[in-house]
């Protein structure tokens, strides 16, 4: 590969300069970067809501925030954390890393990728703007009918919420399709399914789960909005509808959703453990089977969110068994990671520290989850602070800790600079302490009878001290994130430059520069083992990388391989940057917002969408065959 070819590659893959380039880019790294930043901004905003709520709950009978505003706050906190942060950020990290780990130059359907980002951004802006305008969601992130129906939630609050779901699900589904297509066709030659990094496996399973779970919530929220707008009767018990239909549809999505958030984190942990234990992961095959089993089981236990709804007891017992069964694959994975660490040579860097935090918290959350799967016990602690504690242990401990580990792990790859280890350790310990201070007392609050979603509580029920602890803890958590921001800002200003392979990781993402050039890899890497950058099982880095020549550098071309064996099949030209994904997303935003106020908005608004999408797919005059795919 000579310099001239590299220059040609650079020219073919470069974005247009300036603002136009910023708006039209289809580079998976740029899109993923802004996805990640946006998701963290939403995370911080939802986190501020949590701080306000904890302030209100610090003492009994406080009157800082009234019930109306408080209800909007916790509804938006939950909705934003689930729909605008947890799922998008996991998908965003995957959008960045999966093509790099597969050794390809861009994600499949890069324009769809850009489109999904814009849709997500506009949806998030819409719901937060609505909140500021007093049109925030008010029926909780679960939006149970009939509380969310027109009778009990008058006005447009719930409509905005339902459309926010539509926005984020459209975005999430697009990314899932891209990831599946990328993983199935763009793996480096030789990277059979059995040689894929576990992170890629986890994203494959996650994407398939997204594809099967998210239609459910889109259907549910569409039914809700038509109930509220044109008077359909889906959830009206008096006209043959059923309020429990909402709960079934919502939790058929809602339970897999938890695993959709958690599964990518498992992949991140595997990457981090493998790298910092300096040995190949123990039990690759059981790990993959555990991922797939979790994916399947996740669809069979939604009813455990409805044990108190009075469904037939025998059915409930079946869901108890199914819910407990999911502890088995999790147990297998925990075992394999610990075995890997025990038989490797662990190096306690910050990313691994976060993974150790994951063990301490997630195992606890998982065990309280096993408790919740038991019907009688769930009847006692369901919808109490015990559940609040449980899902924060699972989601923060199980997903956010690995994610932060991943931030420290891959930040050098993404930004080209090394984050400060010292600040990282401080952040970890502050977060760990603050987290436990906030959420551990909530277990007791639940057992002592405190229901969730209350804006205040009376004095004298034994809740006061635990609530105060919890509120103090919340601000410690906030402090830890301030440290993280400081760390990131300082590093971006004057951090140490990162080498290509800062941690001696085994996957292909470290076979290119940090940050990677627009074309990712100058030549297509060929793979013959699970750890293409390791020469042996002691994690000795390879000196050289086998590559294949012949993929054109004068246009955006990638190599496609067969779905199972990853044998080279054909070359494929990727589309150029385009403004049309942005225009399509804008047009779609108009449709969604218009439809909140008038059903005819769907019909008339569809015209600009169709025009924009046609323009997007229309081939350019110069390169007849390039515009055609997303």
């Amino acid at each position, binding site marked *: 590969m000579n310099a001239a070819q590299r220059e040609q590659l650079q020219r073919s893959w470069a974005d247009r300069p300036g603002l136009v380039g910023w708006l039209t880019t289809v580079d998976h790294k740029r899109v993923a970067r802004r996805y990640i930043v946006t998701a963290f901004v939403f995370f911080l905003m939802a986190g501020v809501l949590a701080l306000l709520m904890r302030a209100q709950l610090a003492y009994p009978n406080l009157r800082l925030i009234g019930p109306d505003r408080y209800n909007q706050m916790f509804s938006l906190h939950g909705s934003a954390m689930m729909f605008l942060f947890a799922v998008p950020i996991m998908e965003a990290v995957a959008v960045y890393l999966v093509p790099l780990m597969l050794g390809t130059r861009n994600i499949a359907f890069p324009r769809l990728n850009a489109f999904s980002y814009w849709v997500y951004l506009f949806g998030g802006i819409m719901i937060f703007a609505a909140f500021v305008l007093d049109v925030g969601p008010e029926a909780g992130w679960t939006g149970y009918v009939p*509380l969310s129906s027109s009778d009990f939630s008058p006005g447009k609050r719930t409509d905005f919420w339902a459309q926010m779901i539509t926005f984020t699900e459209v975005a999430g589904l697009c990314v899932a399709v891209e990831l599946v297509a990328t993983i199935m066709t763009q793996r480096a030659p030789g990277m059979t399914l059995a040689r894929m990094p576990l992170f890629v496996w986890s994203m494959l399973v996650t994407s398939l789960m997204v594809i099967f779970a998210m239609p459910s919530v889109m259907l549910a929220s569409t039914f809700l909005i038509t109930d509220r707008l044109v008077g359909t009767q889906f959830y009206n018990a008096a006209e043959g509808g059923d309020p429990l239909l909402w709960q079934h549809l919502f939790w058929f999505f809602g339970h897999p959703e938890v695993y959709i958030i958690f599964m990518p984190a498992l992949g991140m942990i595997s990457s981090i453990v493998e790298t910092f234990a300096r040995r190949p992961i123990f039990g690759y095959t059981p790990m993959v089977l555990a991922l797939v089993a979790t994916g399947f089981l996740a669809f069979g236990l939604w009813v455990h969110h409805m044990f*108190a709804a009075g469904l037939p007891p025998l059915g409930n017992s079946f869901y108890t068994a199914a819910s407990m069964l999911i502890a088995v694959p999790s147990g297998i994975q925990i075992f394999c990671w610990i*075995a890997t660490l025990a*038989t490797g040579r662990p190096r306690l860097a910050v990313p691994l520290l976060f993974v*150790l935090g994951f063990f301490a918290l997630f*195992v606890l959350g998982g065990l309280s989850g096993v408790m919740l799967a038991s019907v*009688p*016990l769930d009847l006692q602690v*369901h919808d109490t602070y015990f559940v609040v504690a449980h899902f924060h242990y699972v989601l923060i401990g199980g997903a956010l800790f690995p994610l932060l580990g991943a931030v420290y792990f891959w930040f050098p790859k993404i930004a080209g600079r090394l984050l400060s280890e010292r600040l990282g350790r401080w952040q970890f310990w502050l977060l760990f302490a603050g987290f436990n201070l906030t959420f551990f007392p909530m277990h007791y609050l639940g057992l002592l009878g405190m229901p969730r979603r209350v804006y205040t509580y009376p004095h004298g029920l034994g809740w006061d001290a635990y609530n105060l602890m919890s509120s103090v803890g919340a601000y410690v958590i906030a402090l830890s994130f301030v440290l993280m921001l400081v760390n990131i800002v300082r590093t971006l200003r004057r951090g140490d430059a990162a080498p290509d392979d800062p941690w001696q990781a085994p996957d292909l993402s470290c076979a290119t520069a940090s940050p990677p050039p627009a074309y990712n890899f100058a030549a297509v890497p060929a793979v013959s083992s699970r750890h293409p950058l390791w020469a042996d099982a002691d*994690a000795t880095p390879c000196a050289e990388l086998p590559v294949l020549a012949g993929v054109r550098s004068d246009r955006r071309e990638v190599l496609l391989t067969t779905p199972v064996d990853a044998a080279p099949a054909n070359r494929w030209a990727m589309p150029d940057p385009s403004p049309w994904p942005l225009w399509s997303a804008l047009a779609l935003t108009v449709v969604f917002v218009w439809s909140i106020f008038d059903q005819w908005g769907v019909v008339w608004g569809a015209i600009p969408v169709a025009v924009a999408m046609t323009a997007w797919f229309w081939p350019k005059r110069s390169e007849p065959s390039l515009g055609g795919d997303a």
Partner: protein
Amino acid sequence: MTARAARTLSLLLLALPLAGCAVQGVQSSLQAAADQSRAIDQVWTLMLWVCSAIYVAVIAALAWAIWRRRRAVQREGRTRDPLLARALAAWVVLVVGLLSWFVAASFLADRRLHAGHADLEIRVTAKQWWWQVEYLSPQPDQQFSTANELRLPRDQTARIELLSGDVIHSFWVPALSGKEDLIPGYSNAVLLTPRRAGRYRGQCAEFCGLQHAQMALDVEVLDAAGFAAWRARQLAPAPAPSDAHALRGAQLFLGSACASCHAVRGTSAASRLGPDLTHLASRRALAAGALPMRREALRAWLADPQHAKPGNQMPQVPLDPRDRELLLDYLMGLR
């Protein structure tokens, strides 16, 4: 150093549950006072200890994995290791075994929640944001209705039929049993067999709107004689106003917006939109637990119902302060 810190912290965290049991609470699931809550409590105890043991074991294994002494030359860094594979299999067997135990235990406990025949039928209808409680009987003259209070006889099984008047609520008295939702269009039920006399507190456990936080149910378990006496008092119509002030207050009550929503048995006020006030002054709380049942609290409540419980359905009825005192005289006499 960090190792010790982590271990100390996890030990501390594990020690806390034991401390929690000492807290006395009228709304605590840890203070089981009925057959149903005791059945659940047994499952809880079992799971707490087994899960704690597993947690300690996993964390110990992790700590060992990180800080174990390593020989200079590692011979174990191989993907396949027969010993580890056998350990994995054993671990899976252990996990499956424990889970089966849990499933069996919860199945049996769940059966106990639904076993037993009802000595007493009560219908609870949840509305935004209060509880309508009706004591049912085959004889119509033995039925009565009250609000936000539930009194149960000790050692008898009460079957509580659960209905909703608007949105989904959840009936939950932690000391007596687990919760059950009240869903429009559905009729659910719970059985309660209290074994210890005393006062307990229940609260709506499913988010139901603005005042979900202040939708409490005052529960008292009485011995058989006490319950019979209470029941007899409740069956009686409201006592007649005792003095001229109260009489004037009764006229105000019946002539103003009050009677549009509230019923007082024995008078012409018979609306069922709001809580039945026949024996209001004998209750221990106002507005579903938002305020104590005292004259000054009732005065504040009448003056501005939206202050103590913002968003509730009681409107602010404009009343002259002197009239309000007369009304208070009447209401405080409804024992």
